[in-house]
């Protein structure tokens, strides 16, 4: 079985979903059912334990893995504090680090993200940092104990697709950690493209939440991701067959 491993946990679905921007929180459950997504990111700032009707956690089925994110953090210190509060609030030990000090384009601060990753990985969190696609930062995050990297395709909410394609290709080629493309994926074809390129997963929120029918759109994304993954695996298979060709072209040379 082709599984996505994050920390010690394995997932059969490679679609990570989100909880923001929905018309109605009740739509989340159907999105998860239709897409088979097993991981959902939740902004701790929106978790409202005091108000059961508003509490986003009450709308997520128990078997789904929560990926609390540190939305709103402007530096490593704040991200660390938010992650700890999320753990105490019962959101588990996964965390998506989002350090954003650019309210205009929501670009991540790679430097502060790395600092937060170092601290949280040591504390036993399964850390998934949201980053600008950069192979150097990916190496550093690996050393710091991250469990995956989440490079952006284009700005959050832009639906602009893989504008960072050549950078993503480098990240995918060089990263020893799973690569989950996050942000900017507006269409199933974008998601398919990322998977075909060799991404290990994609996180989709805006494009699903703001679709006219979120559950149907989630299903479409899920199919696109499976198709892209299948094509990627096939490509790998073909490459390896070529590498072990049964009758070498230079056999006559008796090398």
């Amino acid at each position, binding site marked *: 079985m082709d599984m996505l491993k994050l920390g010690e946990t394995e997932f059969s679905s490679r679609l990570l979903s989100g909880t923001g*921007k929905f018309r109605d929180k009740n739509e989340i459950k159907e999105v998860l059912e239709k897409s088979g997504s097993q991981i959902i990111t939740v902004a701790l700032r929106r*978790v*409202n334990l005091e108000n059961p009707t508003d509490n986003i956690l009450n709308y997520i089925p128990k078997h789904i893995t929560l990926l609390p994110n540190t939305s709103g953090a402007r530096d490593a210190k704040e991200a660390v504090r938010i992650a700890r509060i999320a753990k105490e609030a019962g959101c588990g030990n996964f965390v998506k680090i989002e350090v954003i000090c*650019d309210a205009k384009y929501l670009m991540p601060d790679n430097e502060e993200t790395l600092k937060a990753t170092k601290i949280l990985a040591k504390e036993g969190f399964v850390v998934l940092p949201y980053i600008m696609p950069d192979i150097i930062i990916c190496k550093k995050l690996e050393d710091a104990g991250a469990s995956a990297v989440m490079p952006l395709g284009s700005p959050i*909410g832009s639906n602009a697709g893989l504008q960072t394609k050549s950078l993503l290709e480098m990240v995918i080629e060089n990263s020893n950690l799973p690569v989950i493309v996050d942000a900017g994926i507006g269409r199933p074809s974008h998601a398919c493209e990322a998977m075909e390129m060799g991404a290990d997963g994609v996180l989709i929120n805006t494009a699903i939440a703001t679709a006219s029918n979120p559950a149907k759109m989630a299903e479409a994304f899920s199919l696109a991701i499976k198709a892209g993954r299948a094509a990627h695996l096939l490509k790998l298979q073909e490459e390896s067959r070529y590498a072990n060709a049964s009758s070498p072209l230079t056999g006559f040379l008796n090398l």
Partner: protein
Amino acid sequence: MSFLDVLQEYKDFDFENYLESVSDEMIKKAINKKKLNKFDFLTLLSPKAKNHLEEMARRAHEITVANFGYTINLYLPIYVSNYCNSDCSYCGFSKKNRIQRKKLSLSEVEIEAKEIAKSGIKNILFLTGESKKITPISYLIDVTKILKKYFSFVSIEVFPMSEEEYAKLHLAGVDGLTVYQEVYDRDIYKKVHTSGEKTNYEYRLQTPQRGAKAGMRSINIGSLFGLGEIVSEAFFSGLHASYLSDKYLECEFGLSIPRINDAEGHFKPNKIVDDVTFVQIMCAYRLFLPRVEINISTREEASFRENLLGICATKFSAGSKTEVGGYTKAKTEPQFEISDDRSTQEVIQRIQELGYEPVYKNWESI
């Protein structure tokens, strides 16, 4: 460098001439641009752009959904004092108005806070008149500490202060700042602000940036419509927000579009912003500034607010009281008359019926 320098560039700018030169072509181009420059923005504020309001609204809606989704942030105001040291001809709290003055004691603040917290909304804006003497920083800090027990995000709309003073309040738990320039036109500013600290135009103009430097997470600005020329006031409000968001990337900025209604001073507005113009300004703000928060208070009527929700509003107050002690005792005069007097629950229910998600909480105290 401050926004003052930006304003200076427009000292001799001929608005009339520019607005006269606006063509349908220019308007269409501005609506469909990915990134608008300041002249595109001004084009959309022109009287001629009213003929393209539906297209503007559609584009504004699209941008808003992409950036904010189908959500609306909720907040409630709490008036803790109406003592004021300034004379502002349009304001109910103005020093010269003979109204009953009241400052809530800290235990009264707590009683009000408890009552407001029952709404479930975790975002509160506390307001005073502008009297540093009667409501000093130490009092504001004490109020903040009480409010932080019940709310995760606390904002202030009080007198302008120094960066150091804002930093003290931020440390105590204030994350948001609202300060309206009221009117960007210097001559009119002088006319309507006749005495008190508020007569200092430049100090007020530079207030948002002092707040941003002090670490505020969210800053809300705007012009009080009814005082100055409508187009230039909207233009400068937008430019101000744009200037600030370029300079202080880490801070979220918001724009309000307050228009004068009957306050205790019985001020007659010089310029009337009708509903069409209101929507035009709001859409122009959104097209020019895709990520700016657009805040619609209960100054506006219920049905009008509901319609704005479907276009590009992102923040609502709901069930507001504008009297000091309004949630529990309601004895004093309001700062302005409320037009949407539905309860918080009624507003929330309508938001849901309209297919939007009311956001009670959008910050965690960290």
